[in-house]
């Protein structure tokens, strides 16, 4: 769609945005977007603009998330909450098939593929990068996950350019934001007084939907204001991750004493892997009915922090929290690069916010770098 900075921009007022959402529903999309529930801003199926967290924000720090009221009625005035878009495509629980023993054979009854078309409302740059990264796992290898592929098909994305940093996020360090450059049909930057959105078009499909609601060409001043907002977000990141030669650093420091240090704090609660938008581990469960005639296979989310994860021959390869934390961080920031050509971390900060003891991976990396065994890697 050409150079992002040169894209023509449009303005949509609040009413126009509400209409846009209605048009998506008319087109058969199921809207999924942020809403306040259980003390957080989560992703859920929403009916329209009224479900969005108008006037809410969240204060985030390591191990801390507090909903707070804003002074205005901004709809997207917060950084990412506990949920990414991961559970829309890589669903937490999935029946893979049913299977029956019949006439000396086995009959598999496959699951029908899902047909819902999703419209993601308010997707942030870090999370759009995360979706692309997860696509590499489930779509771009030698095998394709059919359920994931079906859910990913025909997704409409209304992105939001972040209006503030979140306290724990560091997308700038990971080169994943705060501005979305691609992966959306429409991208909005929210302005208040008056309440409106500066819109960038990311696809023909986005243009077509926008054309059905009243909108105007954006004024130069609005475009500048929008750009300034995003620039300010970029300047106020809560964390920094030094990524220079990070793969070599972690590969070389498998015996660094910092692993013992973090292991003494880590509870193995798996919150980080649940919240992380790129974690993809899943486990498989085979069940049977009491009569032993019908069995099922399910897939569910799993975490490398569980003792079971590395179970082999009557024991776990990674029996200690030390080895499990080391595995998670080394995989996320180093091995991922060898596997998928990109870091597994998008700097969303969720693992920092949602860790009950406030472990901060940027701090862990900094500590390892400070006394790295490999001088070249610590450069």
């Amino acid at each position, binding site marked *: 769609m050409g150079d992002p900075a040169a894209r023509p921009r449009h303005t949509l007022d609040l009413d126009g945005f509400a209409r846009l959402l209605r048009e998506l529903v008319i087109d058969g999309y199921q809207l999924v977007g942020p809403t306040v529930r259980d003390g957080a801003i989560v992703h859920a199926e929403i009916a329209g603009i009224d479900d969005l967290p108008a006037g809410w924000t969240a204060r985030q720090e390591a191990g801390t998330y507090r909903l707070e009221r804003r002074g205005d009625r901004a709809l997207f005035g917060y950084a990412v909450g506990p949920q990414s878009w991961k559970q829309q495509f890589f669903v937490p629980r999935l029946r893979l098939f049913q299977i029956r023993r019949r006439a000396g054979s086995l009959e598999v009854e496959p699951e029908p593929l899902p047909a819902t078309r999703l419209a993601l409302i308010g997707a942030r740059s870090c999370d759009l990068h995360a979706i692309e990264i997860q696509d590499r796992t489930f779509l771009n290898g030698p095998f394709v996950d059919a359920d994931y592929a079906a859910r990913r098909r025909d997704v409409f994305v209304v992105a939001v350019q972040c209006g503030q940093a979140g306290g724990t996020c560091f997308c700038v360090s990971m080169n994943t934001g705060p501005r979305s450059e691609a992966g959306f049909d429409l991208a909005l930057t929210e302005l208040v007084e008056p309440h409106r959105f500066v819109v960038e078009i990311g696809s023909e499909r986005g243009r077509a939907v926008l054309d059905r609601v009243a909108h105007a060409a954006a004024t130069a001043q609005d475009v500048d204001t929008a750009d300034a907002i995003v620039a300010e977000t970029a300047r106020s990141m809560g964390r920094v991750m030094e990524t220079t030669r990070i793969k070599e650093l972690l590969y070389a420091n498998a015996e660094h004493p910092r692993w013992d240090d973090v292991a003494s704090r880590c509870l193995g609660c798996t919150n980080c892997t649940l919240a992380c938008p790129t974690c993809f581990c899943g486990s498989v469960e085979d069940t049977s009915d009491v009569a032993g005639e019908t069995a099922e296979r399910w897939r569910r989310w799993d975490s490398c922090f569980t003792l079971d994860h590395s179970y*082999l021959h009557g024991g776990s390869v990674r029996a200690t929290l030390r080895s499990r934390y080391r595995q998670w961080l080394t995989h996320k920031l180093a091995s991922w690069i060898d596997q998928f050509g990109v870091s597994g971390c998008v700097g969303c900060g969720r693992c920092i916010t949602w860790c009950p003891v406030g472990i901060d991976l940027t701090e862990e990396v900094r500590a390892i770098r400070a006394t790295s065994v490999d001088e070249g890697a610590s450069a």
Partner: protein
Amino acid sequence: MTPRELLARHPFAHGLSEVQLDRLAACARSARFGEGEVIFRDGRPATALYLIVDGRVVLEQHVPARGSLQLENLAAGDLLGLSWLFPGGHWILDARAVEPTETLVLDAECVRTVMREDPVLGLALATHVIHALYQRLERVRLQRLDIYGAGA
């Protein structure tokens, strides 16, 4: 071949000069053991060391109610016997020839004297012994891990 010629070919004497070989060979004689013949017994005084030239020897331990348990084979090139290093040592295992086995037997007191009187030779031999000990230890460690237990 004479004991000295056999000695010159054995790894235990690797790197020794002609003079040093002469000194060591003075302690050596050939000994042959038939299949099944006992070379030394657990508990007896360790008065000699054996350099295996050819054949195969098994180290065994007799365990009450279980009989003789075979622990390790040694063969050509190996040093048989370590308990001779210090005066008054006793064998801690049985050694039995599994096949017809040709050895060089070196009198332990003679070797210990040579090592004392010729420190350079003494160091060379001690190094060989340490090397053999190290290799043996590594194998014994691996053996002791019982890696083929459940799940292997």
